Structure formats: structure tokens, C-alpha cells
């Protein structure tokens, strides 16, 4: 069990985050670049000292600024895979993998044995004698991972492991990496800026914004109940917040939001509630719709963005702030003749949204 509480002055903002992670599980820390997430890994690795904080792994204390405890990197059972892998250019892949074993004082024969096993496990046996510069991106990533796991660390740290790869390789490596991580018994902390990777890899996800963890939870809870616009935007969802103005039948509730009144069929208790609306639940029209959808808001189109991979689905961003995003087909856009600046009406059913605290 990893428990970390870190506070540090980082240039323009202050880092202040609390994290927890379990063994045999992956915690994904997701956020924009500059949110402090890479720094978190460096504190956990023992490469940086926080102004204030504690890092406990089970019963071992790696850092406690109050008691003056600080174990530097080489004293921690940690495996670290930096963003660009930092493979030693002057050593072969096999020697890279065996570096930690040799540094820890294992006998040469033991180092050789374990290295060979790792090469095989990561399907690198044919490339063992090559230098990192002679390997492809995917191979380099596997070497970096093997190197980090060679000493069987209790904590594995991965800094944006997929971002250095080209799009095609990433696709394949992603699946492979997921398989590897699932089979590990250590605690894994994975940092990324891509929400999709967070959702794929994270047993638990912590969202960081400007040095603070704004929400933690598993995949489902984040998708269902994002609690900040940042998290929602990260996940590609619309989030509206407002105070309750009317409670109807059952648990129906109407909120006054910056974009007008919103009615949700389900709700929790409380006066200030969130409503999350998935863009594909929204329909667009040029005139006031006369449908059964109870929620209608309007605005001018700020952007029209084709979604990869083929642009068949299109995101229509409706201003002004806070923006509201609808996802429709390219055909619909053409049919309606939607263009930037045009006034549109966005509608969605009350039954498709739930309000929560």
C-alpha cells in the first residue's frame, strides 16, 4: 500500500497532493503538462525532495519531512521508467537490463541468469546485444520496463510510457503494456496526459490540475460523476453545476445552471449538484426543437471538430463559456448546414442525466 502526501512550491503553483495506491493495481495520475504529475513521480522515486510530505510504502517510510527521514533513490525498492526511457547509450540492451542487478551486488552468473529470463519474458532475446540506438521505439520501451523490473521493485513508476512512440507502434504497445502491468504484483503508478490511457490502464485514476488532485476514483465513477469541469473536459464530457430550484416527482430535480435550467430525472441529496451530459446524447437543431427532450440550451457555434479516426463523428462546441459540446455525424452537420457562428439549439432528455453532489 502506497500512501503519499506531498507539498512543494513548484515555480508558479504549489504542489499539494495526496495519493494512495494498492499492490497489484495501477494508479494512473492524469493531467495536462505542467500540472505537476511528472514531479510526483520524481518525489516517489526519491530523485526530488519535497518541501513537506510523507511517503509510506506499507510499513516502510521513505520520506517524512517532519521527522527528517529521507531515503534517496538508490535506497528505495523502486523501478522508474522515464518518459524518454533514459537507456544507457553505452551499454547493450542486456547490460541495461542487468544494470540494477550488478549495482545491487549480485554475482555475475546470477545477473546473467536473471537478465536472460527478462529478455525472454519481454521477447528481447534476439536484441540483447544491441545498443539502444539500434532498437525501435517499442523495443526500447520494453528494455526500459525490463530494466525497471529487474530488481522486483515494490513500486513501479511509469512516466508517459507511450508518448515517445509513433501512433502505429503505440497501438500495439498499449495492449502489450496492459497485459504486462496486469500481471505485476507491485504497486504501479502511471502518469499520462491522455484520458484514454487513464481509462484503459487505471484501476484507480487521480486527476491532477495545477498541482492538486481534483478527483480520485475508478474509471466508472469518474465517467459517471466527474466533479470538476477539468475532469469532465479531460473525459470529453459536459459538466453543468447549479443549485436546486425545484424538486419534482420522484427524485426529479431542476437546477439553475450558467446555461439555463436543467432537469435531471435522478438526483442525490443536497442543494448544489452536478449534471454530466455525454456529447452523444445531445441533438442539434437550427430552430427551437419541439421534441420531448426537456433540456434545451442554445448558443453560437464556436468550433466544429472532426473526431478521429475518420471524421465521421463531429464535435460541435457551443459557446459562450462554459462551452457545451455535442457530438453528431458529419452527415448531420452537412444536412443542417452548420457553421461556426451559427446559432443552434442543443437538446437532451432529462431521463438521460442524473444529478449528483
Amino acid at each position, binding site marked *: 500500500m502506497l500512501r503519499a502526501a506531498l507539498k512543494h512550491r513548484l515555480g508558479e503553483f504549489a504542489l499539494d497532493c495526496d495519493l494512495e495506491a494498492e499492490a497489484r493495481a495501477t494508479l494512473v495520475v492524469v493531467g495536462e503538462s505542467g500540472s505537476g504529475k511528472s514531479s510526483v513521480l*520524481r518525489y516517489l*522515486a*526519491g*530523485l526530488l525532495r519535497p518541501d513537506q510530505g510523507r511517503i509510506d510504502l506499507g510499513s516502510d517510510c521513505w520520506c517524512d519531512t517532519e521527522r527528517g527521514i529521507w531515503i*534517496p*533513490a*538508490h535506497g*528505495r525498492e*523502486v*523501478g*522508474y521508467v*522515464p518518459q*524518454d526511457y*533514459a*537507456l*544507457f*547509450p*553505452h551499454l547493450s540492451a542486456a547490460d541495461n537490463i542487468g*544494470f*540494477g542487478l*550488478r*549495482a*545491487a551486488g549480485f554475482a555475475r552468473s546470477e545477473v546473467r541468469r536473471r537478465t536472460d529470463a527478462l529478455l525472454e519474458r519481454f*521477447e528481447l532475446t534476439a536484441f540483447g546485444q544491441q*545498443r539502444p*540506438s*539500434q*532498437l*525501435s521505439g*517499442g*523495443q526500447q520501451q520494453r528494455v526500459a520496463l525490463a*530494466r*525497471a523490473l*529487474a*530488481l522486483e521493485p515494490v513500486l513501479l513508476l511509469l512516466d508517459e510510457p507511450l508518448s515517445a512512440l*509513433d501512433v*502505429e*507502434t503505440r497501438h*500495439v504497445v498499449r495492449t502489450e503494456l496492459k497485459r504486462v502491468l496486469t500481471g505485476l504484483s507491485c504497486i504501479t503508478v502511471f502518469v499520462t496526459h491522455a484520458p484514454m490511457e487513464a481509462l484503459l490502464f487505471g484501476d484507480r485514476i487521480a486527476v491532477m490540475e495545477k498541482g492538486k488532485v481534483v478527483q480520485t476514483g475508478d474509471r466508472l465513477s469518474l465517467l459517471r460523476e466527474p466533479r470538476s469541469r477539468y475532469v469532465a473536459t479531460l473525459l470529453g464530457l459536459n459538466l453543468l453545476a447549479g443549485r436546486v430550484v425545484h424538486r419534482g416527482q420522484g427524485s426529479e430535480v431542476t437546477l439553475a445552471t450558467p446555461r439555463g435550467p436543467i432537469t435531471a430525472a435522478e438526483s442525490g441529496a443536497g442543494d448544489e449538484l452536478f449534471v454530466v451530459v455525454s456529447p452523444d446524447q445531445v441533438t442539434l437543431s437550427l430552430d427551437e426543437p419541439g421534441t420531448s427532450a426537456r433540456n434545451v440550451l442554445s448558443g453560437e457555434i464556436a468550433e466544429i471538430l472532426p473526431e478521429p479516426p475518420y471524421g465521421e463523428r463531429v464535435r460541435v462546441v457551443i459557446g459562450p463559456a462554459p462551452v457545451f459540446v455535442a457530438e453528431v455525424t458529419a452527415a448531420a452537420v452537412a444536412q443542417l448546414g452548420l457553421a461556426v457562428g451559427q446559432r443552434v439549439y442543443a437538446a437532451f432528455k432529462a431521463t438521460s442525466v442524473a444529478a449528483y453532489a
Partner: protein
Amino acid sequence: MTRRSSWLEAGGRIGTLVLAALLGALLALPLAGIVLRVTPSALLQQLAEPTVRQSLWLSLETSLAATVVSLVLGLPMAALLATREFPGKRAVEVLMDLPMVIPPTVAGFALLMAFGRAGLLGKSFSALGITLPFTTAGVVVAQVFMSVPFLVGAARAGFAAVEPRYLDAAATLRAGEVYGFLRVRLPLALPSVIAGIGMCWARALGEFGATITFAGNMAGSTRTVPLDVYLLLQENLDSAATLSLILVVMAAVLLAGMRQAGLGLFAPPRAPRSAQAPAR
């Protein structure tokens, strides 16, 4: 391109070539002068002379010893300067560079003040049975004094240029600072270190002013090739030319060899495999 910038382009290019050629000539002509003066038979004859062999051997011995000493003492200093901040660091940096800028004779005089019989450590040395002036050991000390800055400078730059991310990675792999230095920083800085060794050795080989002032001038024990050449200039110019040529060739071979060794360390990588099937 405007008229002015095309003049600039042409002028800059030509000017650069002309100035570079001038410098090349400035350095090459004196050396050519020596080469042209020495006939192969004269060269062989000189090499057979016992006094010439003596000073050549002495030069090789002492410069090699000086280089080894410089390596042993200089690498740790270079490591410290490259990796640590400490009070007085600026002063130490200046101190390390000083022998490069003070006149060698002044350096020799300073060495006498410290290690001569009447110097600061004179009595202690005598008590320990150590004598430096007028001895071969003194020659080595003078050479170390004058040439170690080259090694420290080059090695330090090499150490400092090693990217921190490699050392960070090493740290997470159980490497303490010393292990990380020996296994990561030093190997990655090796080309610079080797270049430093080459410069140090060449400088030691050519050392004159400090040697003659501190260690004296005596055939067999302290008369290295540079001192011998200086003497020969007053006796026999042909012998002086021959010996000069030998020294220049030795130094040139040394420097070229070191450069090659430094370059050869990182063989250019084969082109990395891009999207090969299977895309792994």
C-alpha cells in the same frame, strides 16, 4: 536577397576561408621549416646518438609518469567540480586554470618556493628523504603542474555534459553516487577524458620553462628533449632541428591517436529499425 546581404554572404564566406588559410599557414610553415631542414640520414644519425636517445627516453618516461599522476589526481577534482557546489569553488576553479596562464618559468620559480630545499616544505621533505630539484621526480612534478589543468578542464566539461536523466535512472537502479559515476558518468564522458589525457601528455612532453627552473638541466636526469633542443640551438642547429622534429612528430602522433581513440569509442549507430513487420 538584397544587395547588401549578398555582399555579406560572399564576403563572409571568402573572408572566413582566407583567414582560416592564414592561420593554417602560420602554424604549418614553421613546422614545415623544421621538416625541410632535416634529412632522413641526419635523422637516423641523431637517433643513434646516445645523448639524443637519453633525452628522448627521459621525455617519454617523465611525460608518461606526469600523465598518469595527472589522471589519478585530476579525475577526482574534475568530478568534484562537475558535480558539486561548495564554498570557495570559484577560487578552486581559478587555481586549476592558473598554470595555463602563468609563464612556465614563473611556475618553476614558484615550485622552488614551495618544494625547493629552502622552500615551504623543504625541511619536511628533507626529513623524509625527498628531494625534488635536480631530480627526475622534480621534472615530473614540473610537468604535472603545467599540464594537469588541461586534463581537469576537459574531463570536467565531459562529466558535466552527461545528461542528468541517465544519472537519475542509475540512482533508481540502486547505484550510489560513486557507482553511478564509475558506471555511467565516466563511460559517457570518456571521449572528453581521453582528449584531456592527450592534451595533458602533449603539454608535459613539451614542458620547458618550469622544468629548467625547478628541476635544472642535467643530462640523463633532467634534460628532457625541449631542454636538449634549447642547448643544441647554441651548439649545433642541425641536431636541434632533428630533435625538434622528433618531438613534434611524437606530439602529433599522440594527439592524433588520442583523438582517434576518443572518436572510436562511440561507433556511429546503425540506422534504427523503423516500422518493420512485425511492428515490434
